[in-house]
């Protein structure tokens, strides 16, 4: 039942029509990969939940693993489901290169956010105390103050 396209009259700009492989094996295989990776991620999430006493290093390690697994899922969805893996290398690069710049965007802004936190904690000890004291230990006159919950406020 395979459909051999010669020069496709409906998209004459395509020089070499290239239908993807005829069987659905690749599709279902990718489904299983995505399913197991998702289950692994959820498993890691529950693992974190079950161990609230983990140190910060361990927590970051697990979260790092989750990020890597998500990137793996993204790769499979893009390459196989969206067929980008079957396209010309030049087209893949047209999409990949801006995305690489995007990674710099991510790093820069997270770094900036962290720096903002550190500067604010250094120069605004009142605010720091308010946000790093457990709620039940806050003095009453603060607890009654609903300023924080003001609509649209970015603290």
């Amino acid at each position, binding site marked *: 039942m395979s459909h051999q396209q010669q020069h496709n009259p409906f998209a004459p700009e395509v020089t070499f029509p290239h239908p993807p492989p005829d069987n659905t094996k690749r599709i279902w295989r990718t489904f299983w990969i995505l399913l197991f990776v998702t289950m692994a991620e959820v498993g890691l999430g529950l693992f974190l939940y079950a161990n609230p006493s983990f140190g910060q290093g361990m927590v970051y390690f697990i979260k790092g693993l*989750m990020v890597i697994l998500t990137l793996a899922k993204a790769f499979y969805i893009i390459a196989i489901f969206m067929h980008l893996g*079957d*396209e010309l290398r*030049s087209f893949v690069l047209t999409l990949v290169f801006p995305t690489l710049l995007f990674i710099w965007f*991510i790093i820069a802004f997270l770094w900036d*956010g962290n720096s903002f*936190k550190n500067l604010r904690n250094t120069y605004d000890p009142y605010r720091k105390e308010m*946000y790093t004291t457990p709620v039940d230990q806050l003095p009453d006159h603060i607890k009654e103050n609903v300023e924080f919950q003001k609509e*649209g406020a970015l603290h």
Partner: protein
Amino acid sequence: MAQAIPGKQKWWSGGKSPYNMEYGKVMMWFFLLSDAFTFGAFLISYGTVRFSSDSWPDPNHVFHSFPFMGDANLPLAFVSLMTFILIMSSVTMVLAVHEGHRMNKKGVIKWLSFTIIGGLFFLGSQAWEWTHLYHVGAWWGSNPFNNIDHTLANPNFTNFFFTITGFHGLHVTTGVILLIIALIMTLNGNFDRKGHYLMIEKIGLYWHFVDLVWVFVFLCFYLI
């Protein structure tokens, strides 16, 4: 993995698509890239605010409800189901495109229908999640959940959650509408008449993109 193309081609000499791809598909990819940057900007702003916060609510304690299970504590269970449904709908979409390549109208109808059902299921689930959270006091400007270290939380958490999942839900909705239009066109025999199912392929790209965004939203809000 890329195509096997004979010899050296002068792709940019004009008169043909330099990417050996139908122009409509090229434009859809470019649109998806721009939309990826939009969502990326949203998620990065979320990350920036989160990195500038001393602490943040624990998603395992916030997202632990399941429809019809009352007060049962089931962390991450419902959102995992939603993720599975969306991935499943992506699989059925690829199968629909596959059938389209073989000009198999019946196959396209079958798999498109499953994809639409998956999309509607996801939207319904998201609506339930929003309603549930609203009923426990979460909304734009109002955050009843304290941070993981029991310090005072601020509405950033709920503001970002509802805005970004809302934006994503909007994309899923438009995706479902496009899929329904595609289904109607298939039923009417439009693509048989045209001789190709390229429209299904392009809408499929959009649907996969919606799934892809959810994969990252799932990571950023529920896992990390």
